Protein backbone atom coordinates (compact mmCIF):
# COMPACT_ATOMS: atom_id res chain seq x y z
CA UNK A 1 0.00 0.00 0.00
CA UNK A 2 1.38 3.40 -0.91
CA UNK A 3 -1.56 5.77 -1.30
CA UNK A 4 -3.75 6.03 1.80
CA UNK A 5 -6.05 8.90 1.05
CA UNK A 6 -6.64 12.02 -0.97
CA UNK A 7 -8.47 15.05 0.36
CA UNK A 8 -9.71 17.92 -1.81
CA UNK A 9 -11.10 21.12 -0.36
CA UNK A 10 -12.02 24.05 -2.56
CA UNK A 11 -10.15 22.47 -5.46
CA UNK A 12 -11.93 23.02 -8.77
CA UNK A 13 -15.45 21.59 -8.49
CA UNK A 14 -14.81 20.15 -5.02
CA UNK A 15 -16.08 23.08 -3.01
CA UNK A 16 -16.58 21.09 0.16
CA UNK A 17 -14.05 18.87 1.88
CA UNK A 18 -13.98 15.49 0.12
CA UNK A 19 -11.88 12.53 1.26
CA UNK A 20 -11.08 9.52 -0.94
CA UNK A 21 -9.73 6.49 0.93
CA UNK A 22 -7.62 4.10 -1.13
CA UNK A 23 -7.15 0.41 -0.53
CA UNK A 24 -4.71 -1.95 -2.16
CA UNK A 25 -5.37 -2.87 -5.78
CA UNK A 26 -7.66 -0.90 -8.05
CA UNK A 27 -9.83 2.06 -7.02
CA UNK A 28 -12.35 3.27 -9.58
CA UNK A 29 -14.07 6.63 -9.94
CA UNK A 30 -17.32 6.69 -11.90
CA UNK A 31 -20.04 9.23 -12.67
CA UNK A 32 -21.73 11.34 -15.37
CA UNK A 33 -20.03 13.82 -17.71
CA UNK A 34 -18.82 16.94 -15.96
CA UNK A 35 -19.27 15.54 -12.46
CA UNK A 36 -15.65 16.06 -11.40
CA UNK A 37 -13.82 12.76 -12.03
CA UNK A 38 -10.97 14.23 -14.07
CA UNK A 39 -10.77 17.07 -11.54
CA UNK A 40 -9.71 14.44 -8.99
CA UNK A 41 -6.93 13.35 -11.38
CA UNK A 42 -5.92 16.99 -11.85
CA UNK A 43 -5.84 17.35 -8.06
CA UNK A 44 -3.33 14.52 -7.71
CA UNK A 45 -1.17 15.97 -10.45
CA UNK A 46 -1.41 19.42 -8.86
CA UNK A 47 -0.52 18.39 -5.33
CA UNK A 48 2.57 16.56 -6.62
CA UNK A 49 3.89 19.93 -7.79
CA UNK A 50 2.70 20.27 -11.39
CA UNK A 51 3.55 23.73 -12.75
CA UNK A 52 2.20 23.37 -16.27
CA UNK A 53 -1.31 24.80 -16.28
CA UNK A 54 -2.13 23.30 -19.64
CA UNK A 55 -1.74 19.82 -18.12
CA UNK A 56 -4.14 20.99 -15.41
CA UNK A 57 -6.69 22.25 -17.94
CA UNK A 58 -6.40 25.80 -16.62
CA UNK A 59 -4.41 28.95 -17.24
CA UNK A 60 -3.51 30.29 -13.80
CA UNK A 61 -3.66 29.64 -10.08
CA UNK A 62 -7.18 31.02 -9.80
CA UNK A 63 -8.53 28.32 -12.11
CA UNK A 64 -7.64 25.74 -9.47
CA UNK A 65 -9.97 27.29 -6.88
CA UNK A 66 -13.71 26.61 -6.75
CA UNK A 67 -15.20 29.47 -8.75
CA UNK A 68 -18.66 29.51 -7.25
CA UNK A 69 -22.05 29.11 -8.87
CA UNK A 70 -25.57 30.54 -8.79
CA UNK A 71 -26.16 28.71 -5.52
CA UNK A 72 -22.77 28.66 -3.82
CA UNK A 73 -20.17 31.35 -3.31
CA UNK A 74 -16.67 30.89 -4.62
CA UNK A 75 -13.89 29.63 -2.37
CA UNK A 76 -10.98 31.79 -1.25
CA UNK A 77 -8.51 28.95 -1.32
CA UNK A 78 -7.92 25.47 -2.75
CA UNK A 79 -6.19 22.70 -0.85
CA UNK A 80 -5.32 19.14 -1.78
CA UNK A 81 -3.65 16.68 0.58
CA UNK A 82 -2.24 13.33 -0.52
CA UNK A 83 -1.38 10.97 2.33
CA UNK A 84 1.05 8.10 1.83
CA UNK A 85 1.70 5.02 3.93
CA UNK A 86 5.41 5.07 4.69
CA UNK A 87 5.70 2.14 7.09
CA UNK A 88 8.31 0.49 4.84
CA UNK A 89 10.28 3.70 4.42
CA UNK A 90 9.94 4.01 0.65
CA UNK A 91 9.86 7.77 1.15
CA UNK A 92 13.17 8.97 2.63
CA UNK A 93 11.44 10.76 5.52
CA UNK A 94 11.30 9.74 9.15
CA UNK A 95 7.54 9.37 9.44
CA UNK A 96 5.36 6.27 9.05
CA UNK A 97 2.77 8.44 7.31
CA UNK A 98 3.61 11.27 4.93
CA UNK A 99 1.10 13.93 3.92
CA UNK A 100 1.87 16.23 1.00
CA UNK A 101 -0.32 19.31 0.72
CA UNK A 102 -0.63 22.19 -1.66
CA UNK A 103 -2.64 25.35 -1.11
CA UNK A 104 -3.49 28.08 -3.57
CA UNK A 105 -5.00 31.51 -2.89
CA UNK A 106 -6.81 33.95 -5.14
CA UNK A 107 -3.84 36.31 -5.12
CA UNK A 108 -1.92 33.60 -6.98
CA UNK A 109 0.18 32.41 -4.09
CA UNK A 110 0.93 28.69 -3.82
CA UNK A 111 2.14 26.91 -0.67
CA UNK A 112 3.57 23.43 -0.28
CA UNK A 113 3.46 21.46 2.96
CA UNK A 114 5.01 18.23 4.16
CA UNK A 115 3.28 16.79 7.21
CA UNK A 116 1.97 20.24 8.00
CA UNK A 117 5.32 22.02 7.63
CA UNK A 118 5.84 24.62 4.91
CA UNK A 119 8.49 23.52 2.41
CA UNK A 120 9.81 25.05 -0.77
CA UNK A 121 8.64 23.73 -4.12
CA UNK A 122 12.16 22.59 -4.90
CA UNK A 123 12.29 20.49 -1.74
CA UNK A 124 9.06 18.82 -2.78
CA UNK A 125 10.45 18.28 -6.29
CA UNK A 126 13.63 16.74 -4.88
CA UNK A 127 11.60 14.34 -2.79
CA UNK A 128 9.38 13.41 -5.74
CA UNK A 129 12.44 12.83 -7.91
CA UNK A 130 13.89 10.42 -5.38
CA UNK A 131 10.81 8.21 -5.47
CA UNK A 132 10.18 8.35 -9.23
CA UNK A 133 7.30 10.81 -9.13
CA UNK A 134 8.88 13.90 -10.66
CA UNK A 135 8.28 13.31 -14.38
CA UNK A 136 4.94 11.55 -14.06
CA UNK A 137 4.66 10.89 -17.81
CA UNK A 138 3.47 7.35 -17.29
CA UNK A 139 2.28 7.73 -13.71
CA UNK A 140 -0.71 9.88 -14.58
CA UNK A 141 -2.40 9.30 -17.93
CA UNK A 142 -4.95 12.08 -18.53
CA UNK A 143 -8.21 11.76 -20.43
CA UNK A 144 -7.82 11.51 -24.18
CA UNK A 145 -4.05 11.29 -23.84
CA UNK A 146 -3.58 7.52 -23.84
CA UNK A 147 -2.11 7.41 -27.30
CA UNK A 148 0.17 10.39 -26.68
CA UNK A 149 3.04 7.93 -26.33
CA UNK A 150 2.29 6.72 -29.85
CA UNK A 151 1.95 10.22 -31.28
CA UNK A 152 5.37 11.26 -29.94
CA UNK A 153 8.38 11.45 -32.23
CA UNK A 154 10.88 8.65 -31.49
CA UNK A 155 13.26 11.22 -29.94
CA UNK A 156 10.55 12.47 -27.63
CA UNK A 157 9.46 8.96 -26.72
CA UNK A 158 12.94 8.37 -25.42
CA UNK A 159 12.13 10.46 -22.35
CA UNK A 160 9.71 7.78 -21.12
CA UNK A 161 12.65 5.39 -20.95
CA UNK A 162 14.89 7.91 -19.29
CA UNK A 163 12.20 8.42 -16.69
CA UNK A 164 12.00 4.66 -16.10
CA UNK A 165 15.79 4.36 -15.92
Amino acid at each position, binding site marked *: *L*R*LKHLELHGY*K*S*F*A*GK*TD*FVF*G*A*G*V*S*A*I*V*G*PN*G*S*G*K*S*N*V*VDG*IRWVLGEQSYSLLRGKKTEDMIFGG*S*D*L*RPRAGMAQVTLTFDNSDG*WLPIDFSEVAISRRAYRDGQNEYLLNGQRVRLRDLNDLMARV*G*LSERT*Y*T*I*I*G*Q*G*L*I*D*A*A*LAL*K*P*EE*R*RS*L*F*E*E*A*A
Partner: protein
Amino acid sequence: MEREFRKTFDAVSIHFRETFTRLFGGGTAKLALTDPEHLTTSGVEIQCKLPGKRTQTLSMLSGGERSLTACALIFALLRVSPTPFCVLDEVDAMLDEANVGRYRDMLEELSQSTQFMIVTHNRNTVQVAETVYGITMGADSASQMISLKLDGERVETPRNAPLTL
Protein backbone atom coordinates in the same frame (compact mmCIF):
# COMPACT_ATOMS: atom_id res chain seq x y z
CA MET B 1 23.79 7.15 -18.09
CA GLU B 2 23.95 5.52 -21.49
CA ARG B 3 24.15 2.10 -19.89
CA GLU B 4 21.15 2.86 -17.72
CA PHE B 5 19.13 3.83 -20.77
CA ARG B 6 20.23 0.72 -22.67
CA LYS B 7 19.46 -1.55 -19.74
CA THR B 8 16.02 0.00 -19.31
CA PHE B 9 15.31 -0.12 -23.02
CA ASP B 10 16.16 -3.82 -23.22
CA ALA B 11 14.05 -4.67 -20.20
CA VAL B 12 11.04 -2.68 -21.39
CA SER B 13 11.38 -4.23 -24.87
CA ILE B 14 11.07 -7.71 -23.45
CA HIS B 15 8.02 -6.83 -21.39
CA PHE B 16 6.42 -4.86 -24.22
CA ARG B 17 6.47 -7.89 -26.51
CA GLU B 18 4.64 -9.84 -23.87
CA THR B 19 2.12 -7.17 -22.79
CA PHE B 20 1.28 -6.42 -26.44
CA THR B 21 0.63 -10.07 -27.35
CA ARG B 22 -1.46 -10.58 -24.24
CA LEU B 23 -3.59 -7.46 -24.70
CA PHE B 24 -4.25 -8.20 -28.37
CA GLY B 25 -4.70 -11.93 -27.88
CA GLY B 26 -2.00 -12.50 -30.50
CA GLY B 27 0.29 -10.61 -32.87
CA THR B 28 3.81 -9.39 -32.13
CA ALA B 29 5.42 -6.03 -31.46
CA LYS B 30 8.83 -4.70 -30.69
CA LEU B 31 10.64 -1.56 -29.76
CA ALA B 32 13.59 -0.41 -31.85
CA LEU B 33 16.29 2.17 -31.37
CA THR B 34 16.42 4.66 -34.21
CA ASP B 35 20.16 5.12 -33.65
CA PRO B 36 21.82 2.21 -31.78
CA GLU B 37 25.25 3.78 -32.35
CA HIS B 38 24.38 6.88 -30.36
CA LEU B 39 22.59 5.87 -27.21
CA THR B 40 22.52 9.35 -25.72
CA THR B 41 20.36 10.71 -28.50
CA SER B 42 18.66 7.69 -30.01
CA GLY B 43 14.89 7.74 -30.24
CA VAL B 44 12.60 4.77 -29.73
CA GLU B 45 10.35 3.37 -32.44
CA ILE B 46 7.38 1.04 -32.06
CA GLN B 47 6.77 -1.66 -34.66
CA CYS B 48 3.69 -3.80 -34.40
CA LYS B 49 2.15 -6.67 -36.28
CA LEU B 50 -1.47 -7.31 -35.32
CA PRO B 51 -2.83 -10.89 -35.28
CA GLY B 52 -2.89 -12.14 -38.89
CA LYS B 53 -1.88 -8.80 -40.40
CA ARG B 54 1.45 -7.56 -41.73
CA THR B 55 3.69 -5.19 -39.81
CA GLN B 56 2.23 -1.74 -40.27
CA THR B 57 3.00 1.86 -39.45
CA LEU B 58 1.39 3.11 -36.26
CA SER B 59 -0.70 5.59 -38.23
CA MET B 60 -2.70 2.79 -39.84
CA LEU B 61 -3.85 1.41 -36.51
CA SER B 62 -7.48 1.91 -35.51
CA GLY B 63 -8.51 4.10 -32.57
CA GLY B 64 -8.95 1.11 -30.28
CA GLU B 65 -5.73 -0.53 -31.46
CA ARG B 66 -3.81 2.66 -30.69
CA SER B 67 -5.22 2.81 -27.16
CA LEU B 68 -4.33 -0.81 -26.54
CA THR B 69 -0.79 -0.48 -27.95
CA ALA B 70 -0.21 2.55 -25.73
CA CYS B 71 -1.47 0.54 -22.73
CA ALA B 72 0.95 -2.24 -23.61
CA LEU B 73 3.83 0.24 -23.50
CA ILE B 74 2.68 1.86 -20.24
CA PHE B 75 2.25 -1.57 -18.62
CA ALA B 76 5.71 -2.63 -19.79
CA LEU B 77 7.24 0.53 -18.30
CA LEU B 78 5.38 -0.11 -15.03
CA ARG B 79 6.70 -3.67 -14.81
CA VAL B 80 10.29 -2.59 -15.31
CA SER B 81 10.16 0.53 -13.21
CA PRO B 82 7.00 0.54 -11.06
CA THR B 83 5.79 3.91 -9.82
CA PRO B 84 4.25 4.10 -6.33
CA PHE B 85 0.82 4.35 -7.95
CA CYS B 86 -0.69 4.89 -11.37
CA VAL B 87 -3.69 6.99 -12.45
CA LEU B 88 -5.56 6.13 -15.67
CA ASP B 89 -8.31 8.49 -16.86
CA GLU B 90 -10.69 6.76 -19.30
CA VAL B 91 -7.96 4.89 -21.20
CA ASP B 92 -10.56 2.23 -22.09
CA ALA B 93 -12.95 4.68 -23.81
CA MET B 94 -12.32 3.33 -27.32
CA LEU B 95 -11.95 -0.36 -26.55
CA ASP B 96 -14.51 -2.96 -27.64
CA GLU B 97 -15.73 -5.66 -25.29
CA ALA B 98 -13.08 -8.26 -26.11
CA ASN B 99 -10.23 -5.80 -25.69
CA VAL B 100 -11.68 -4.34 -22.49
CA GLY B 101 -11.67 -7.83 -21.00
CA ARG B 102 -7.98 -8.41 -21.72
CA TYR B 103 -7.08 -4.89 -20.58
CA ARG B 104 -9.00 -5.41 -17.38
CA ASP B 105 -7.35 -8.76 -16.64
CA MET B 106 -3.88 -7.30 -17.06
CA LEU B 107 -4.82 -4.34 -14.90
CA GLU B 108 -5.91 -6.71 -12.14
CA GLU B 109 -2.63 -8.59 -12.34
CA LEU B 110 -0.50 -5.45 -12.27
CA SER B 111 -2.53 -4.11 -9.36
CA GLN B 112 -0.96 -6.75 -7.13
CA SER B 113 2.24 -4.71 -7.16
CA THR B 114 1.00 -1.20 -8.05
CA GLN B 115 -1.97 0.76 -6.74
CA PHE B 116 -4.19 1.96 -9.57
CA MET B 117 -6.74 4.71 -9.60
CA ILE B 118 -8.89 4.56 -12.72
CA VAL B 119 -11.66 6.75 -14.08
CA THR B 120 -14.01 4.80 -16.30
CA HIS B 121 -17.50 4.72 -17.82
CA ASN B 122 -17.14 1.00 -18.56
CA ARG B 123 -19.06 -1.51 -16.45
CA ASN B 124 -16.67 -4.33 -17.30
CA THR B 125 -13.62 -2.42 -16.16
CA VAL B 126 -15.21 -1.44 -12.85
CA GLN B 127 -15.51 -5.12 -11.90
CA VAL B 128 -11.82 -5.38 -10.95
CA ALA B 129 -12.01 -2.41 -8.61
CA GLU B 130 -11.99 -3.13 -4.90
CA THR B 131 -12.98 0.46 -4.09
CA VAL B 132 -15.50 2.42 -6.13
CA TYR B 133 -16.40 6.08 -5.68
CA GLY B 134 -19.29 7.71 -7.49
CA ILE B 135 -19.09 11.41 -8.30
CA THR B 136 -22.06 13.57 -9.18
CA MET B 137 -22.48 17.29 -9.70
CA GLY B 138 -24.73 18.77 -7.05
CA ALA B 139 -27.41 21.38 -7.65
CA ASP B 140 -24.98 23.97 -6.27
CA SER B 141 -22.46 22.96 -8.97
CA ALA B 142 -20.12 21.43 -6.42
CA SER B 143 -19.01 17.82 -6.87
CA GLN B 144 -20.38 15.28 -4.43
CA MET B 145 -18.80 11.95 -3.67
CA ILE B 146 -20.47 8.76 -2.52
CA SER B 147 -18.87 5.46 -1.70
CA LEU B 148 -20.37 2.59 -3.70
CA LYS B 149 -20.44 -0.89 -2.19
CA LEU B 150 -19.10 -3.83 -4.14
CA ASP B 151 -21.31 -6.86 -3.71
CA GLY B 152 -19.33 -9.86 -4.82
CA GLU B 153 -18.62 -9.17 -8.46
CA ARG B 154 -21.30 -6.52 -8.96
CA VAL B 155 -21.27 -2.83 -8.22
CA GLU B 156 -24.50 -1.72 -6.56
CA THR B 157 -25.58 1.87 -7.00
CA PRO B 158 -28.05 3.37 -4.50
CA ARG B 159 -31.45 3.91 -6.16
CA ASN B 160 -31.44 7.66 -5.93
CA ALA B 161 -27.91 8.21 -7.17
CA PRO B 162 -28.17 9.66 -10.72
CA LEU B 163 -25.03 7.84 -11.78
CA THR B 164 -24.12 6.61 -15.18
CA LEU B 165 -22.56 3.20 -14.80
